[in-house]
């Protein structure tokens, strides 16, 4: 598929392919999303704002230029902004494909990094020359100020012009927690939220620290997604219980929502409110306990996002859909077109209740 090259969250021609529970696919404008969900259903989105997680700087002892991409923190506590797992690149910037970026100088525990107004120290290496745990110095408010002043959103070689922070905040962005944009949420403007409400469709949010999607390094990418902290509000857990009780479907906006809800799920489909860490990998073998459908960007085979779609639809269905999206000129990546995939488990449930 062609990458979307302009950072427009809601381009006028955005497309949406819907794959129903039996694997049949239909096409239309993305604005019809609110019409494809039914009264009684609940749409759940990730309201994480995106951090300016890319910090240019120097490795103090060698003077070598580096780029640090923050990739993980332990919790969403506003004070817990000192220790981050980070991917470190050497000289160059995002105009060079990540695959071709120079490695950083050798990083040893205790090494200082000067990142604009911020200083950080390497705490330890994490089993890969690019992957480290680092620790910022100073108070939490100073770390937030340094990120705000010096950090930039993680950039992509396929996008022109460079991304500003407002390009990567979804319309519903709240607490800053994501390292890369929870981009499925770009589709949700406030008119869509109003339309959902008019149609009697619920809407709720959680906050999930969407991590980096790809580093261009195969060994590193095999570790993705990293464990990701999330928080589910009480009101959202209640809304999910309500939807299940009335036989409504839970529609996740983005892979991060699937990860958070399934991590917080009890086998009976109830969801624990509060903070948690999503550690599981979701794929074809996963039995989904909570989520019945996903609105997502288009993804290509081999990515963890594509693998996650395998929990909703059979490999054959996804492969056929992929060929159709390709033929119809769907665009991929963060600012691309969308797919809405209903879980095939819904078809099994429907035929069971029809047989009963």
């Amino acid at each position, binding site marked *: 598929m062609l990458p979307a090259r302009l950072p427009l969250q809601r381009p006028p021609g955005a497309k949406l392919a819907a794959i129903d529970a039996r694997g049949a696919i239909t096409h239309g404008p993305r604005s019809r999303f609110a019409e494809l969900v039914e009264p009684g259903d609940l749409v759940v989105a990730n309201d994480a704002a995106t951090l300016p997680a890319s910090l240019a700087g120097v490795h103090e002892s060698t003077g070598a230029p580096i780029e640090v991409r923050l990739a993980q923190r332990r919790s969403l506590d506003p004070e817990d902004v000192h220790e981050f797992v980070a991917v470190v690149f050497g000289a160059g910037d995002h105009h060079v494909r990540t695959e071709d970026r120079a490695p950083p100088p050798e990083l040893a525990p205790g090494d200082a990094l000067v990142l604009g107004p911020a200083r950080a120290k390497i705490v330890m290496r994490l089993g890969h020359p690019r992957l480290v745990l680092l620790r910022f110095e100073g108070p939490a408010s100073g770390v937030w100020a340094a990120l705000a002043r010096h950090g930039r959103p993680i950039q992509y070689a396929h996008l022109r012009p460079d991304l*500003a922070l407002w390009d990567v905040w979804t319309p519903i962005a709240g*607490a800053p927690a994501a390292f890369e944009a929870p981009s499925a949420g770009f589709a949700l403007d406030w008119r869509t939220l109003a339309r959902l409400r008019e149609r009697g469709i619920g809407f709720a949010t959680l906050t999930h620290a969407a991590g980096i999607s790809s580093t261009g390094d195969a060994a590193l990418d095999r570790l993705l997604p990293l464990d990701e902290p999330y928080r589910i509000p009480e009101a959202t857990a209640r809304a999910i219980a309500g939807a299940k009780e009335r036989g409504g479907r839970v529609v996740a906006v983005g892979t991060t929502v699937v990860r958070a809800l399934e991590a917080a799920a009890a086998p009976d489909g109830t969801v624990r409110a509060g903070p948690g860490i999503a550690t599981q990998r979701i794929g074809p073998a996963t039995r989904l306990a909570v989520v019945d459908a996903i609105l997502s960007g288009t993804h290509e085979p081999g990515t963890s996002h594509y693998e996650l779609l395998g929990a909703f639809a059979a490999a054959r269905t996804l492969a056929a859909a992929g060929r159709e999206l390709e033929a119809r000129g769907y665009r991929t990546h963060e600012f691309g077109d969308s797919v809405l995939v209903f879980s095939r488990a819904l078809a099994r449930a429907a035929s069971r209740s029809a047989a009963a």
Partner: protein
Amino acid sequence: MNPSKDYTALAGYRIAVTGGTSGLGLALAREWHREGARVAFVARTGSEVERIAAELPGSIGIVGDVARKEDIHAIALQALGGLGGLDVLVNNASSLGPVPLALLADTECEELEEALATNLVGPFRLTRAVLGALRASAAEGRGGVVLNISSDAAVTPYPGWGAYGSSKAALAHLSAIWDRELEGEGVRVLARDPGDMDTPLHRIAVPGADPATLLQPEASARELTRVIVAELEGIARQRAPQAAAA
């Protein structure tokens, strides 16, 4: 009306104010800080921000200019990041336009644009940047209130107040429309006139004014805080009956 009850209701709320190092904004920040709210305040001058942050321990001081597009998301990031979300935003930072005040025919276009940038476009941008957080707060039954500081000059056509008055009139109308549009989300957008106060802005506008005829900003801050608390309580009752009953 028991004022002490109003103020305990603020404990734990996350509140941000622009223009927070002098006049009404500072009085609001002090009031909320005293009452246990978690406060972020924004102002343009770094040394002033440091001074007030030292006076109000635990508060988050943010250096930025709401009139500058490039500053808006940096301000929002620090407020939302440092507070972990937001329940209340007060857009208080204001520009008079031409100083000393000038007749409209003597007002440079750039001076009108400057008043609009600070008094209308800045509050619009900042509100938009934090609206997701306010929506989330309302959905959790906590809050979701934007209070835009207006003026009687938004209603009465005082000669000499053209840039300021017309920008504040636009802000008041924007607030009214936005409030209607966000009804379903549980987010309130209000505009309030705090009255003529003895503040640096007023001293610049009316250099000879007798302070005795003016309100003290602390009194206006208490009044506006009562308005905010009433809205927060209303949202809590409406959105989360269980939480409000607890």
